[in-house]
């Protein structure tokens, strides 16, 4: 009796419910799936993305899901597919482990936009939206040269990320194209694990070798820049310009107080907006304007994926207000704690 009872009820309820759940033929807005890793940034991405989608298509719906594991993301993707998504915007937890999602979406004829991180080893990706990370080193190096002004052959220290990180190599090459011939490298380090502790040790040895004379510091991230600054505090005079990357809250605060010269801001808002625009175009079959990608592609190991690569913005004291604050990336209240209130007022942040 157990099996019959279970099956009978199941079949019956399936029949009843599918019959009344059929499509009524009303023209509905499309559904756009946004699948991201669960992180503090995820909700920012969601709000920017949704705001932009509803702006261009008021009755469109964003199916948002955040995942902690690859399997969870897979479940969210297949649910989005059967839930009727017209396009999937996917920020994979791991670029290496998300090709299956793209393959399954392709089988259901749903285009996939790889967001922020590139899904590797699949020819079925429609687009890739991210930042032009290869130019990051050059942008920061340019900012450093500007900050050091007319000094001839200044001595700089460069602190790079983990040697096994593919970004590290690109950062170094890009920075070198700008710095080559213009500066003297007092020291250059790869930082295992990109940890603050290792960066401090590196900076300490560099200071000893250079007799505490440093004209500028180029760090591959705000975390590394913070470690370099902490090490130099009270030991180096005059204070050199320090460059970092990531627009971390602590880095923005250091820029306000003058400890750090600039950071690179990769606007979550701009990135989410570009992805939302692209998703809308793909969902409604609108031809994607050529200007969006500019004909750029990035190879993911299997194919050249048409790519929208946004340029990171150099943030110094003068444009904190017009970049991170205006985007809502960090609010003035978050930046201007009571300790740095006067510096904030001087920099015109409110």
């Amino acid at each position, binding site marked *: 009796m157990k*099996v019959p009872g279970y099956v009978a009820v199941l079949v019956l309820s399936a029949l009843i419910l599918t019959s009344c759940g059929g499509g009524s033929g009303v023209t509905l807005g499309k559904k756009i799936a946004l699948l991201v890793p669960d992180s503090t940034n995820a909700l920012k991405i969601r709000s920017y993305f949704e705001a932009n989608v509803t702006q261009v298509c008021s009755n469109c719906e964003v199916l948002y899901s955040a995942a902690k594991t690859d399997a969870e993301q897979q479940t969210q993707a297949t649910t989005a597919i059967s839930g009727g998504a017209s396009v999937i915007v996917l920020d994979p937890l791991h670029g*290496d482990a998300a090709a299956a999602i793209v393959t399954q979406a392709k089988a*259901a004829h749903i285009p996939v936009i790889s967001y922020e991180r590139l899904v590797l080893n699949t020819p079925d990706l429609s687009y890739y939206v991210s930042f032009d990370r290869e130019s990051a080193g050059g942008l920061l190096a340019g900012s450093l040269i500007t900050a050091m002004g007319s000094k001839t052959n200044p001595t700089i220290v460069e602190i790079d990320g983990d040697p096994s990180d593919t970004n590290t190599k690109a950062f170094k090459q890009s920075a070198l194209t700008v710095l080559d011939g213009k500066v003297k490298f007092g020291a250059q380090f790869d930082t295992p694990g990109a940890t603050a502790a290792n960066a401090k040790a590196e900076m300490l040895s560099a200071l000893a070798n250079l007799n505490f004379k440093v004209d500028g510091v180029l760090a591959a991230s705000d975390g590394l820049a913070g470690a370099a600054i902490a090490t130099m505090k009270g030991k180096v005079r005059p204070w050199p310009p320090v460059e970092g990357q990531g627009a971390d809250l602590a880095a923005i605060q250091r820029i306000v107080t003058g400890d750090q010269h600039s950071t690179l801001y990769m606007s979550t808002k701009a990135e989410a907006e570009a992805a939302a625009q692209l998703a809308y175009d793909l969902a409604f079959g609108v031809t994607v304007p050529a200007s969006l990608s500019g004909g750029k592609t990035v190879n993911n190991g299997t194919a050249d994926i048409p790519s929208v690569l946004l340029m990171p913005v150099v943030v110094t004291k003068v444009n904190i207000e017009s970049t991170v604050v205006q985007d809502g990336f960090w609010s003035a209240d978050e930046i201007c704690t009571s300790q740095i209130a006067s510096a904030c007022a001087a920099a015109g942040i409110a």
Partner: protein
Amino acid sequence: MAHVEAPELPPDPTAAVDAAAVELPPGIVAQSLGEYVRGYIGRIRGGQSGVLPVVVGLVAIMVVFEVISPNHVFLSAGNLVNLFQQSAVFMVLAMAEIFVLLLGEIDLSAGYVGACGAVIGVQLVQPVTTNWPWWAAIAAALAFCAVAGALQGTIITRLGIPSFVVTLAGFLIFNGVMLILLLLGPFSGYPNLGANSSNVQVLYNLMAGNIDPTVSWIGMAVIVAGLGAVLWLGDSRRRRSGLVAPPASLTLIKIAAIAAAGITVVGISNINRANIGTLAGVPWVVPIVLAVLGVWTVLLGNTQFGRYIYAIGGNPEAARRAGINVALIRTLAFALCSTTAGVGGLLYASYIGGMSNNVQGGQLVLFAVAAAVIGGTSLFGGRGKAMHGVLGGLVIGGIYNGMYLQGLDVQRIFIVTGLVLLAAVTIDALSRRASAP
């Protein structure tokens, strides 16, 4: 389990059947369909509700999510097939845990042991390294799991250490082993099943591959005919020999139900699931899960080994005095648990198209135990069936799927899953109290 006499009740001709039915499955005592139904109701009243609560729960989940899901997509063909695929890992891991839950034990390591098996399988088929044939890779993966389970089982039974502690150690050890295995080969920690080789694609298609619709129908027909013949011939032989056997009408109803289930599953799967183009057919994962279910159901229900498991789970001391080699059976149960977890791990790898380091082995185990208990298996040992794992896995998968369709975050899903689990263990505890002497 003695029964309290109730002399003040008026005499009832069915009282004897009702009383016996509480202890015996209705199929054994009933001589007609009416008696069977009465016996079944008697068992439910006596606290032996079996799969009834989970079936009711499953129907409730389906109704609720179908009503509230956007455009009522929950019961669409595409989503039902998804639902099964999403639940498959939970189902198989739950069936794994049932072996040890029946003994009143637990295996916390199953998630990572299964994940180790999965990594081994995925690594061995890589064309640029070992390039093993898929069947050999699967065999090696399952063999590893079997050995891992047998080792833990041996420590638990021979040294008398609680399974909770031994498998907690295993949980940590196999988490580490998995990470080491992941880093082997030139894949920077993410060996995947995306390679363009038919050998690798076999593993990839365990979960996502579809059987051709026509072949699906034929296969289903063969399986239903085979099962029906076995059921009918078995029961009629018992009837001819004068042994206790369910009434013929009941056997026919069972066969009809299996046929109806087969037609429903294949029918739903053969509906085109793609927005554009064609995507139809029964996914391979369906027969795989059904095969695990079938084999373990027969092993537990129709073999001496199965009877020993239930005997030990019910009362280990009595089982030992009856001459059962308790240590051997318990060790085997742990080995079978881990081997089944290996099947679950391979399905997991197939699901995400490779293996990566963020497998949450602890959460998988807890969901597996939750699925088994939600399905009707007792945490206290002695009561449970492989079917419970499948039903409980569907409940958990259904909650996930339905709540994702609503766009709800994982934190709410955890809360709902927790409440369902709480309801299930409450039913388990209450039914134990009701059936206590």
